[in-house]
Structure formats: C-alpha cells, structure tokens
C-alpha cells in the first residue's frame, strides 16, 4: 500500500513543469495576478499596517514574468 501511495505521488510530480522565462506571457497578464488592482493592494497594506500592526501577506512578489 505504501509503495502504491509513493508511486502515485511520484506520478503526480511528473506533471510538474518548469515555466521558462520566455513562456511567462500568459502569467504576466493582468487577470493572472493575485490582485490586479495596485491601488487596492496599497490600501490594504496601509490598513493592515495602521490598524493591525502587520504587513505583508497581500500576495506574491513579482508579476509572474520573472523579470523583477
């Protein structure tokens, strides 16, 4: 059973694909962003920093194009 689970995990991992820097056109699209609205991100960060004394957690760094 253990071996079967292990095999399944390995087979699933075979589906992993590295996206090359020149293939990130679709990922760089606005609709692919964690939050497309820069103003909203900035406002949320401001609220978190002032009311919750916390920062970060608003999404991932970079736009997915691998260029920043």
């Amino acid at each position, binding site marked *: 059973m*253990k*071996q079967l689970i292990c095999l399944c995990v*390995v087979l699933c991992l075979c589906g992993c694909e590295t996206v*090359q*820097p020149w293939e*990130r056109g679709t990922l760089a699209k606005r609709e692919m962003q964690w939050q497309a609205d820069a103003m909203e991100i900035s406002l949320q960060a401001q609220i978190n920093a002032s009311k919750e004394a916390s920062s970060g957690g608003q999404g991932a760094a970079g736009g997915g194009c*691998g*260029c*920043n």
Partner: protein
Amino acid sequence: MQRWALWCLLAVLAVPAVAGVQAGQQAPALSLPSLSSASPAQLSLASLQGKVVYLDFWASWCGPCRVSFPQLEQLRQELAPQGFEILAVNVDEFEADAREFLEEIPVTYPVVRDGTGATPAAWGILGMPTGYLIDRQGVVRLVHQGYRKSDGTALRASIIELLGE
C-alpha cells in the same frame, strides 16, 4: 524503502541544469526572421561581426523591457557611428503583441523574432530581459539580466570600453 522514495523524489524534482551562454564564451550562431521592415528578411549575428553588439532578448509583456527600449535606442543612436549595434530578439508567443509594442515604443535598431523559444533556450536565458554584450571578435563579454532605469550608465560605460579595444 524510504531511501528509494527519496531518490525517486529527487529524480523527479531535479531541474535540468541548463548551462547558458556565459561571459568569455564565443557567441553561438543566431539567424532569425526580422520584424522590422527596414531590415533584411533574415538577420544573423554573423552579419554584424566586427561590431560591438548588444543582443537583447525581450517580450512585450515584460515591464523592464519597456524601460530598456528608449535607453537602448538612445545608446544606439549615440554609439552607432563608432561601431555599436543592437539586435533585439523578441520571444513573444504572438507576433501581433510584439508589433503592438514596437508601434508604441519604436526603435531604429533591428528586431528579430523567435516565437518557438528555441533561441532563448539555446542561450539559456534566466529572466526577461537578458542582454549579451558581444565584442568585435564575437565573444560574449557581459551578460545583463533584468533592466532598471539606472542600468543605462553602467551599460554605456561597458559598451564604450569594448568599442575602444
């Protein structure tokens, strides 16, 4: 069992280490169809031999490329009489995206295109944009990844140094 599983995991996750073109290496041959109407239909790196060439891999969706284009155009206009040329390689999936970008930010230097990804893969680029400064002998002297507004000064100095050799 555990060791076996670990090896399997490592084998699957192992990212193939692609050795890209490094500074000090001879620039690989490159010949691609041109996007600019002013240039010949097919442009090769070999046709620019004897010049200091900045080979720039770019895409329309890449923010720093947008920053680099006006600066590169300025550098080219300033240094072309001394034997400097830029060859921009577009790697967009769709040609229309590249053309739209070039209409927005027009440049006078030649732009070629590879939508298949074969050329950037062969050169082993790790980010967008990636530029290769190639000397008059066809040797890559500098690999420039990414682009910030402040990068222009250092790049200009490197180009001038190579032009003086």
